[in-house]
């Protein structure tokens, strides 16, 4: 008996610890959250875009030019480049995922980009789609015909483009770009370091063009046209356009993030405003609390003492599951919260099955203690099999589903797994720890249900 009480206490401490963890790591529940131990700040709930607000973009990658064995690699490279560009933008916790085509999804290679907190899609799309094109051009030979146009006001425009010809040297051969400041003018400038091939090309170009201009083009427009004084063999160049420090910084980042390995087109976009997300969270939490209270009232009124224990087990279940959501972490979406609420129902079901069974065994003439034992034993197969089928369903949905369905399947599946533990182990430990062996009017009342006590049911039979 002592052993049973000890294990019940242990479970109680363990469960309260988890509940405390969930409580402490929630900014909204703690007034002085900012001043708290850093440990507690590491585990907020991770909210999906539909709850936190943000943008969800789906791109299609054109891999027709890539050999089929190389598709996986180039998609990974694409993801890395996009990730670097997104990070540049200062988005917190962006998610960039590759979704491979196949028989089941029936689509080509896709890239899914989630940008929490970014609701300006225009900006987001530009940031992701832009590849800076860096080109080096040399002066055209003198005999090249120059194109000039005369506009309405009679001004003559000379097309500078025709003054320069392309060279082989482009941003492709860039190893690294860094931001620095001119020591005299304090102006920001971008310093470039070429890779081996680029260094050779740059040396050739500078050698052949001493005393002439070399134009540095960015996205098709010349940003800098320095005059070459001598051959530059070390592969270093400087762009000193009239940048603001921020422009220069952004350019460095863009140059470093590189070009896209495969072309992409935007298939679908979704933005959710932050206020909409917040109201969805509040509504979801409210619904969950009311649902929980209704279930509590029902369980206690109908199942009395075992009902109360089921409520304790259910509270443990909620604490454990929420802690798992924080620790893994699981990204919570509206559908995910739906899955969680339904698994709450499943957790209750296991207890209802057991209690109905207990009551039946007691009605058959078992004493209460034996009734509890047999009730658990007999109900186990149905709890096991019904939950197994739920887990199978959630695995299939998680495997095949779209992100929304995946979110649901994950919380639902985890919920069912945890509920098997809480409804069976935890409620069993508590029921046994109570140590009720006697059959008298009071205990019969406690273990009765609905409108009759356990004893009455025995008599009625």
């Amino acid at each position, binding site marked *: 008996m002592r052993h049973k009480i000890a294990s019940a206490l242990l479970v109680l401490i363990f469960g309260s610890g988890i509940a405390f963890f969930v409580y402490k790591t929630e900014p909204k529940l703690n007034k002085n959250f900012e001043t708290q131990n850093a440990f507690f700040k590491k585990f907020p709930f991770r909210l999906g875009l539909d709850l936190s607000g943000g943008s969800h973009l789906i791109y299609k990658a054109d891999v027709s030019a890539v050999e089929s064995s190389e598709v996986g690699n180039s998609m990974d490279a694409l993801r890395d480049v996009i990730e670097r560009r997104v990070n540049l933008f200062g988005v917190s916790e962006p998610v960039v995922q590759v979704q491979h085509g196949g028989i089941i999804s029936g689509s080509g290679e896709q890239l899914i980009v989630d940008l929490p907190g970014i609701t300006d899609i225009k900006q987001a799309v530009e940031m992701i789609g832009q590849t800076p094109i860096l080109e080096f051009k040399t002066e055209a030979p003198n005999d090249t015909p120059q194109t000039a146009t005369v506009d309405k006001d009679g001004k003559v425009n000379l097309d500078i483009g025709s003054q320069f010809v392309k060279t082989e040297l482009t941003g492709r051969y860039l190893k690294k770009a860094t931001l620095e400041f001119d020591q005299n003018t304090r102006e920001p400038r971008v310093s470039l370091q070429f890779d081996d091939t680029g260094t050779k090309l740059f040396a050739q170009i500078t050698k052949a063009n001493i005393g002439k201009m070399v134009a540095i083009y960015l996205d098709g427009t010349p940003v800098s046209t320095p005059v070459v004084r001598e051959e530059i063999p070390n592969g270093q160049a400087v762009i000193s356009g009239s940048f603001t420090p921020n422009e220069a910084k952004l350019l460095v980042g863009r140059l470093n993030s590189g070009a896209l390995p495969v072309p992409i087109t935007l298939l679908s976009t979704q933005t*959710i405003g932050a206020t909409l997300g917040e109201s969805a969270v509040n509504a979801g939490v409210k619904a969950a609390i009311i649902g929980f209270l209704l279930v509590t009232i029902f369980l206690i009124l109908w199942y009395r003492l075992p009902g109360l224990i089921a409520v304790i087990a259910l509270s443990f279940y909620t604490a454990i599951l929420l802690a798992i959501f924080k620790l893994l972490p699981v990204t919570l979406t509206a559908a995910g919260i739906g899955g969680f609420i339904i698994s709450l129902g499943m957790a209750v079901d296991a207890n209802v099955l057991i209690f109905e069974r207990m009551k039946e065994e007691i009605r058959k003439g078992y004493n209460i203690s034996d009734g509890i034992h047999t009730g658990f034993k007999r109900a186990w197969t149905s709890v096991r099999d019904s939950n197994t089928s739920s887990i199978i369903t959630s695995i299939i949905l998680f495997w095949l589903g779209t992100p929304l369905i995946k979110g649901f399947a994950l919380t639902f599946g985890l919920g069912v797994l945890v509920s098997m533990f809480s409804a069976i182990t935890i409620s069993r430990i508590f029921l046994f720890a109570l140590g009720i062996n006697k059959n008298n009017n009071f205990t019969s009342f406690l273990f009765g249900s609905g409108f009759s006590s356990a004893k009455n049911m025995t008599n009625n039979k």
Partner: protein
Amino acid sequence: MFIIKYKKIFISLSVLLVLVSVIFIAIFGLKLGIDFKGGALLEVDYSNSSSGRPEASLLENKIKTLKMLDINQVLIQPTAEFGYLIKTRNLSEPEHQMLSALLSLDGKYPVLEKSFNSIGPSVGSELARKAIISIIMVIFAIIFFITFAFRKVSRPVASWKYGVITIITLLHDIIIPTAIFALLSHYTGAEVDTLFVLALLTILGLSVHDKIVVFDRIRENLKEGDKKSFAETVSISTSQTIVRSINITLTIIGVLVPLYLFGPETTKNFALVLTIGLFFGIYSSLFFASPLLILLEEWQLKNKKP
């Protein structure tokens, strides 16, 4: 033993319900949402506007007359007190910007964009494909699992037949809520979206759960090896699980109703479809699956004798 006595009535009632449902779906049809057919959905809010929200017809004209946008069909539904939901074909990002700029009607009505969603047709068809494949996969997995779980009670009815009966009753559980949804969408304009599919899949899950609980009791009682007939065993097992079934339905409905009444706007229809499905799921576990099992065994006996 009322289940044995009235089994034909129960079965006919379920069959009738399914037939009526199919007719409902045929008449009212199911409107596919942009999730499945592609398109754009823009939710805006005019609560900052001193003159309230503009007339929907005004917006509609404005949108249709902008040549650059080339939108022929636009659906504008009021939401909340000051908002609109605007549905069009799928829009590229520049087109989206143009549309957003238009909605303030030259600054007269300051507008706040709450959400925007544009889905290309190919993404939509991909989603439909995935949804169908997952439903089929779930159904097959369930048949296999039940065949396996009930392998020890292959007499008098083979365990795979429990699986098949489960699937037949599952169709019942899914078609009826779908029909009610079709009726609902006829009046409220609700559309079939991913969450609807999710609701159906959840009904599948919960309803299999119920059927297994009833079958488990049958399995246990068959193993006890009383001299009772199969029909009697099924009938007793069903009545033994009735209280549990009603209680658990009440509990789950107890969490779904708050989800419908107070939960996020996006999961309202989800909760409603689920509640309906849950109700019919429990009903069919008790009054469709069990009578079918009894009927099946009777057929087996008849076919063996001559």
